[in-house]
């Protein structure tokens, strides 16, 4: 079931094109990371999805509700974690969640139950007597996350959930977010943190200057942007004698005295042939493994292409 769907979503502020022609599809159970540098248009995109900003052009639907025509239904279906927690510092956490529960017209008993459940889940029970102004940054973000989840929304929009947090708090929040994955929920995480995107997301859309310039699973992005997987063969003896046994069309990238790196489109066919060749040459194989390529490589590649005026890459509606 598609929970988030946009087509040609565009937002202009005066002469500035903040978002330009963004088309996305996120299904239930899926997490999409909207990855991009600061000012790329991530926040504007999700503000449109939360029916806070009105698109200049294009359409967006949340759980089937149009963001322009049915804003109240959209906002009922969405949990929006803003980049800045925006807590009321003179309030206490129960009172704070109760306020948002009342806005969502939740019955008092349900608010109480959900509040207890979420505060326990995020380890905030101990802080019930503190004013929110006394909370640490991590605690504030976790409470903001609890606020976002209070009405059990089908769609979660998380804007830079771990920005400006120390590694340990960021880790805690990331753990919390990965625990939110469910079969009837779609999540969009806006981030400029590559590690976060790779860790949390099923699919990644890279946004730059308001345009989606690449879109797909991390694996797809790596393949489409960095080419076929690269394999590394490490041998117990010298490579020289075994070279003539290798498949003639093997695309060799680099080699040393007892190692070889090659790029392969169909590893399941080619790798057994390579191993067989080594056996025939009588050379013992220590390892044959894929060389890791990080999302950072992909990101830098895409952004570099973008700088050179390259168009959209690896884009598909998923």
């Amino acid at each position, binding site marked *: 079931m598609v929970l988030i769907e946009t087509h040609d979503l565009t937002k202009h*502020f*005066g*002469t500035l094109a903040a978002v330009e022609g963004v088309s996305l599809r996120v299904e239930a159970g899926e997490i999409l990371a909207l990855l991009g540098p600061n000012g790329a248009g991530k926040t504007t995109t999700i*503000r449109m999805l*939360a*029916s*806070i*900003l*009105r698109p200049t052009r294009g359409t967006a639907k949340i759980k089937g509700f149009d963001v322009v025509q049915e804003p*109240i239904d959209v*906002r*009922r279906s*969405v949990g*929006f974690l*803003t980049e*800045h*927690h*925006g*807590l*009321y510092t*003179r*309030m206490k956490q129960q009172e704070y969640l109760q*306020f*948002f529960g*009342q*806005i*969502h*017209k939740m019955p008092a008993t349900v608010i109480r139950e959900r509040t207890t459940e979420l505060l326990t889940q995020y380890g905030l029970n101990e802080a019930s007597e503190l004013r929110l102004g006394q909370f640490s940054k991590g605690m504030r973000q976790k409470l*903001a996350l609890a*606020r976002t989840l209070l009405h059990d929304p089908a769609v979660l929009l998380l804007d830079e959930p771990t920005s400006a947090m120390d590694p340990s708090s960021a880790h805690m929040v990331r753990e919390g977010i990965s625990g939110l994955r469910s079969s009837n929920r779609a999540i969009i995480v806006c981030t400029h943190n590559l590690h976060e995107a790779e860790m949390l997301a099923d699919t990644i859309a890279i946004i730059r200057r308001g345009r989606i310039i690449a879109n797909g699973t991390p694996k797809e992005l790596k393949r489409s942007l960095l080419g076929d997987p690269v394999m590394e063969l490490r041998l117990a003896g010298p490579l020289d004698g075994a070279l003539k046994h290798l498949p003639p069309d093997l695309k060799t990238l680099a080699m040393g005295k007892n190692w070889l790196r090659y790029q392969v489109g169909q590893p399941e066919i080619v790798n057994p042939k390579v191993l067989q060749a080594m056996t025939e040459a009588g050379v013992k194989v220590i390892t044959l493994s894929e060389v890791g390529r990080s999302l950072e490589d992909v990101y830098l590649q895409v952004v570099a292409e973008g700088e050179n005026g390259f168009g959209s890459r690896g884009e598909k509606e998923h």
Partner: protein
Amino acid sequence: MVLGAGVKKSTNQVLETIAGAWIVARREIRDQLRDWRILTPIIILTLFFPLLMNFTAQQAMGFVTRYGAPIIGDRLIPFLLLIVGFFPISISLVIALESFAGERERLSLEPLLATPLTDSQLYLGKIVASLVPPLGASYLGISVYLVGLVLSIGWRPPPQLLLQVLALTTIQAIVMVSGAVVISSLTTSVRAANLLASFIIIPVAELVIGESVIMFWARYEILWWIVLALALIALVFGRMGLRLFNREELLGKEIDVIDLRWVWQQFWRAFRNGTKTPIEWYKNVLSCSLPAARWEILITTGLLAAGYIIGFRLADTFTIPKDLVNLDALGETLKNPEGSIVLLLGLDWKWIFYNNVRALALATLLGAFSLGVLAEILLMVPIGIIGYFAGNVVLAGGDTLQFLTAFVLPHGVFEIPAAIITGSAILRLGLAALSVPKGESLGQSWLKSLAECARIGIGLVLPLLICAAVVEVYVTPRIAVWLLTG
């Protein structure tokens, strides 16, 4: 049956709006009562200040009675009642600026904007939250002051006076708060909002001075008119606030920087309105701009007519000596060559044109910042003067039609339509802030109206004023001489 269901639906919607607004208001009021910076002045102004005023009233009464001028004391006590009520509500402005601009600056507004609350619920909730504590404090202060007076000197306010003070206090608070919302919506920080707040504080302070003069003058019935005028201003501000306080305006504006390029683009696009040649543009002004301003033209015509009638009637009160407005005598004067100077003979038409343009430019400037009201008043003045002279001519036994035909109509045929069209364009410009179309910012809407104003000004008003000036110099005097000298 259908009507009943409709009424029920509307009632439910209203109740739902109130319920949502109350959730917002309750949280904010609770929050304010936890803030010592708000609580301390409220307590001081509610309890300490009325007692001080009480003491002042007692002393003043004793002093003026000793010197045989009890009337001063009689006037002072109601005035102090007004002041006791006003001081606590002055805090409402600060609270409103904090509630609107402050919440935006503290970045706690966005989570609220992402909830199912409507813009109206948020707006209403914040207005109520900004009004309840200061008004509560004000009513309490008034009660403390009155109880003190009853106990000390046995003075009880006439019910009408008490009602007037309560009405004035309440409506002034509403005006300040609704004005603060408009200001907050136009800025992105509390600092900028505080700077702009002087546009509210200064007029309200002047109003209170005016009210005090009225109270010392004992013309209490005028206070009702002030209440009515303030209610209208509150309505205007309320409507503006509702238009401006929307998610798009609040989050679409990140910094208060003037983008001149954007301003020019918006203006130029609206000015051209898709036309390519001057002829096409001129046709477009006639076919689009003029019909679009038909309601404003009607209103301005009505107001100018009202100006004429007021002027005409004022002739009864401030009558000019008959021999000065006697048309026959004037005709005799015109027979002499030196007498024709009164008809502007020999004046340069460019001078008249320049004067008229200057007057209309001033009207545009005033109208742009007063929702068109000051412009309409300014335009009513010359018509009122014509009416006043016409009235005096009638009182002197003359013929109004002869007077108007001789002195006004020849060039008035061009000048009066020019004034009406200008007035309507200024009214549209002034009202642009009240009727911002969906999807447009206040700035966009205002620039579009300014461009419309410029289109009408250049395309219609300037040619009419040139014709009027030429006729006024070369034709009107000759018609006047011909009509009045027989």
